[in-house]
Structures are given as C-alpha cells and as structure tokens.
C-alpha cells in the first residue's frame, strides 16, 4: 500500500495553475527526490502533502488519511509526516534540546522524561549531543538544520518531507546535513526531498521526479534519468544545476 497517494491533484493560486492533474503513489521506504526549474511547483507539491497548502481538485491520502478530512484528521495526518524547511524554522526561544522535546510533549503527550530521552537520542544521531543546550542563534546553519531534522523525527513520523533543506546553507555546511539525510535514508525512512543536490539524488535517491510546468514530466530511476535525460527540458535543467 502506498504511503502517499495523489489522485488527480490540481492546485491553483488564483488563476495560476501550479499543480496540474497529478496522480502518483509513494511506497514505504522510497527516497523520492523532486527536482524542477524554479517556479515549477515542486515546493508546492511537497507542501500539499502535509496540508500547508490546500488543493482545489482531487485528493491526497497520507497513511490512510485524506487532506480533505476534518481539522482533527488533518492534524493526525501531519503527525505522520515530519517536515524540514529551507529556513530551519527552529523555535528561537528554546534550546536545541527543548526544540526536539517540543513535538513529543505537545503532540504525543509524552512526559518530560520520555521526551528528554527521545531528544537526547536523536541529537546524538545527528551529531549534536554536545551542543544541545545552545539556542538556535548560537548554532551554525548546518547545525540548526540538523536540529530541525531531529525535531521532525521526534514525533515519530512515517515519512519525512524536506523542502530544499540545504539551499540556505554555505557549501561547506551542506555536507553535514546531506550526511544525516543519507543515514536516515539508509535506515529505511520514506523520504520526499525537494532539492537541487543532483549528487544526492544520484547516490541516495531511489526515484526521481522532474516537475515542469505543474506536471510530472519524468518519473524514474535517478541514475538513468540523470545520465541519459530523455527530454531537452531535463537536459537543459541538469546543465544549469550541475
């Protein structure tokens, strides 16, 4: 059974069609890398999955829950999908540890003690155990993004959504974030990653979606699509990002 199902999804901003009749399924364990020219709708594609954007037509089902459900069902759906943002969006008034504890305490009704155990464990996994009492503005961009990944994992989601997680980072800081994502992929987590990191797509991705003008132009194995682009559009795009 697919963990995410798109059924004829159309998303419009006013008159502007951003996603045009998209249908596809994402299976558990897949690492789907979404690429496309800027403004092609790839971020919107991701944000529709956890209802940060609402769709006009069709339906998206995540872990058996529809994005068109009641507010309570939508909150339940969102807990199935951890989200990592381009701008990190860490809570600035909380330390790294408190940021990661926040989800379990407020959405899973975990006790402080349980949340603390979960958070310390996750921060160790992303390599930030010794920085856990620092506030976000005392951490580098790469460290902040790794805390954000730990925070998203803390609510024990079934899949992880990454919205250009390395785009706001200096080149030398991207590596540490991509490494964490690679480890996560190898642990079997289902991931949907919007990115320009073609190297990551090739090495870690199990599936590549090329979104162009609101449609899925190509859907296939990353290695094949990248080394042998079937269309001029994809070829042009690959020349510009690499």
């Amino acid at each position, binding site marked *: 059974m697919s963990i995410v199902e798109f059924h004829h999804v159309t998303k419009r901003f006013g008159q502007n069609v951003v996603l045009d009749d998209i249908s596809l399924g994402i299976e558990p364990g897949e690492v789907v890398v979404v690429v496309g020219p800027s403004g092609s709708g790839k971020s919107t594609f991701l944000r529709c999955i956890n209802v940060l954007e609402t769709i006009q037509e069709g339906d998206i089902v995540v872990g058996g829950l529809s994005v068109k459900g009641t*507010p309570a069902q939508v909150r339940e759906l969102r807990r199935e999908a951890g989200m990592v943002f381009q*701008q990190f969006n*860490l809570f600035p008034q909380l330390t790294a540890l408190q940021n990661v504890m926040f989800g379990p305490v*407020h959405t899973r009704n975990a006790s402080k003690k349980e949340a603390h155990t979960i958070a310390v464990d996750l921060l160790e996994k992303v390599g930030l155990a010794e920085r856990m009492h620092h506030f976000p503005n005392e951490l580098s961009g790469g460290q902040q993004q790794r805390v954000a990944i730990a925070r998203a994992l803390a609510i024990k989601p079934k899949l992880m959504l990454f919205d250009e997680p390395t785009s706001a980072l200096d080149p030398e800081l991207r590596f540490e974030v991509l490494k964490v994502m690679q480890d996560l992929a190898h642990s079997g987590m289902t991931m949907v990653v919007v990115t320009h990191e073609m190297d990551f797509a090739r090495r870690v991705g199990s599936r590549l979606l090329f979104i162009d003008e609101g449609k899925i132009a190509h859907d296939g194995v990353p290695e094949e699509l990248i080394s042998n682009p079937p269309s001029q559009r994809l070829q042009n795009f690959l020349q510009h990002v690499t």
Partner: protein
Amino acid sequence: MTFEWSAIWDALPSLMDGTKMTIYITSLGLLGGAILGFITGVITTYIRVPVTWRNSALAIGAVVLFIAALNWIDFGFLQDDQGNISTWSKLLALILLIAAAVALRRYVGVALSFIAQLYILIIRGTPIVVQVMFIYFALPMLVGWRIDGESAAIFTLVINSGAYIAEIVRGALQSVPKGLQEAGQAMGLPFYKILIFIIAPVAWRRMIPAMGNQCIISLKDSSLFIVIGVAELTRQGQEIIASNFRSVEIWAAVAVIYLILTGFIALVLKLIEHRMRVI
C-alpha cells in the same frame, strides 16, 4: 515670588490620596485593557475581514434583524405588573442569542473580527475626554443606570487602552516569522497551542517597548478624568490650589509625582527587557 516648600508639605496628604487613586485607576484600567487588547489583537490578526461598505451594511443589517426578531417574539407573558421586561425574558433573549450564534457559527469569527475593527476605529478616532464624558454623562441617559466616577474612569481606561494594546499585539504577532507557525502546523499542533507555545513567546518580547509606552500614556491620560471629578492626582492638585493659590508649588509637586510614577514604569520595563534573551 518665593517657593514655599511648606505649601507642598501641607498638601502632601491629599496629594498622596490623589496618587493612590491615580495608581488604582491606572492599574485596573491597564489590566482590563491588556485582557481586552490581547483578545481583540488576536482576533484582528488571525481573522481578516476588510471593513468595506458591503460588510458594514451586512453587520448593521444583521443587528437590526436580530433586534427586530426579538421584538417580534411576544414576551408579553413574561412582563411584570409595571410592564418591565422580567429577568426571565432577558434570559430567554440571551438563550436566543446563543442559539443564533451556534446556528451561524461559521460567521461568528467574521462578526467578531468586524466588531473588533470597528471598536478600534471608534476608540482610536475619538478623544479620551469625550469617551469618559460619554460614559459618565450620556450612557446613563441611554441605558438608565448611573455609574460612579471611579468606575466610569476605570471603564474608559479599559476600553481606551484596550484599543491601542490590540494594535500593539497585532503588530507583534504579525512580526513573528510565518515559518514558525508552519513548523507548528507541520507537527500537527492545534492553533491555540501554536499561538501559546510558539508565537506568543516570540511576540511577547517584541511587545514590551510599545507596552511600556502604553502604560505611561494611560497613566498620564488618567489626569483627564478631572473632567468628571474623580479625585485623582491632577484633580487633587487643582482643589488644593483653589484653596491656597500656590500654583507653582502644587503643580510642580504634581508633575514630580507623575514623573516618579512614569519613571518607575520605565525602570521596571528596562529590567524586564534586560532579563530577557533577545531573539
């Protein structure tokens, strides 16, 4: 002329009474204003309803219809011997109002937001002296019950500072990066938790300078309640001068007392800001 320190010493007990009254009115007024302002600010931030001619007409139409409906329903059997409407019928009207609100709950938020914006428009657009005179002199003629000067002063300060605090709250809430709200949403948090645990702690720090301003302004505005004869500091000063004609000494003393009070507010705010991490 000579500066008679003794005039101040003699007047000090009454000036202290006035000071106490000023502090009493201001603190209760600001407390109420803060509660009213927070609620109003949250409503105007998160429920966006433009004040247009169409919306205004709809809102006024709804109110007229509601009153008409209440009058149309015959409450005659609930009137007492003097023909006054009894508590029971008032209760019935209240139940009716709640029932209407439940039936039209989709529009309750819209209506609240509209009312909130209208409230801010009216209060910010009229002088506080006119407001307090209206509440003290005009309202009793409209609704039939008198309120004493003290209550009128506190009530005026509540609604007046509430309107300004609502805008302070709205400004602070809107300044919080949208991404924080999205991070909370993406975790599956309900809106009230996002507001309380994510947005409010950030917004709170940004509110403090403007809130300090408002506290000082409201304290000084309480001097305008002299027009309804409330025995606050300025009024006390004026009355003392009416009997001893020592304008220089008494007004100087009154000014210094205000300065001490506002200075204290400024100091407390500085301390709060100092203790807080800047984010």
